[in-house]
């Protein structure tokens, strides 16, 4: 069980949306995390590496900054199965680049741009994620 947090989740979502808007304001680009993270490795096709590196550094530093601000560490429960998490990481990495976006690029930014392509992508990853979890938790009983 996790606690349903409508207000914190709505507020946090709005901060994510604000970051995406400021990214469009400054860089003129969508804030797609898979696009940003996936281009940290070569080959480099443009000169945006410092911007991408900066964004990922900010992303990684966020829990530490939150801890300074609030005095409490972010709580999380991550599966301790290394093979499962490594396999999940491979699928998430490959799939997000192959489909040109993940939850942020297609989900947040694409839906906000009313992109048909992103609506299709978001519907598909939501569906396969629901089915995967259903099979893992209720059929195989993981």
């Amino acid at each position, binding site marked *: 069980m996790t606690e349903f947090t409508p207000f914190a989740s709505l507020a946090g979502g709005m901060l994510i949306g604000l970051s995406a808007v400021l990214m469009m304001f400054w860089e003129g680009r969508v804030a797609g995390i898979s696009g940003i993270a996936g281009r940290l490795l070569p080959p480099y096709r443009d000169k945006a590496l410092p911007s991408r590196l*900066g964004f990922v550094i900010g992303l990684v530093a966020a829990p530490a900054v939150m801890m300074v601000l609030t005095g409490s560490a972010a709580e*999380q429960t991550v599966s301790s199965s290394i093979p499962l998490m490594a*396999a999940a990481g*491979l699928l998430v990495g490959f799939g997000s*680049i192959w*489909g040109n976006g993940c939850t942020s690029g297609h989900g947040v930014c694409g839906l906000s741009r009313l992109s048909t392509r992103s609506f299709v992508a978001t519907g598909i990853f939501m569906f396969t994620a629901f089915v995967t979890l259903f099979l893992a938790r209720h059929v195989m009983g993981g």
Partner: protein
Amino acid sequence: MSFVVNVALGLLFGIGLVVSGMADPAKVLNFLDLFGTWDPSLAFVMSGAVLVAFIGYRLVWARGRPVASGGFHLPARNDIDTRVIVGPAIFGIGWGLGGFCPGPALTSLGLGAAGTLAFVPAMMLGMWAARLLAEARAQARSA
């Protein structure tokens, strides 16, 4: 300058992930668990983000051009090809297994969970493999 601005943007995004609860894979997995311990929080995160971005994007576009670039670089394609079906299908399977998508996984690095430390390098490898495969296919097509 853009480096510093992007550190701030990444920080804001990451704080949003932590505040919203999305840095916790258990919350994401429970959102996906419609027929079990369902936690609707993720729908509120998406609603808040899309609401702000939907309005904010239009205000920014009305200005004509971004601050640090001559023009907007929006994803040009809006067609449905096999990649935009196969890619998200694969991504969703991984998301449903681990409860991590790329943003929350990176934000969780410093929290140091063993699962995260296995997930992130594998994710970077998967991203790299997809890019190299896509480039090799594009070259084969143009050759």
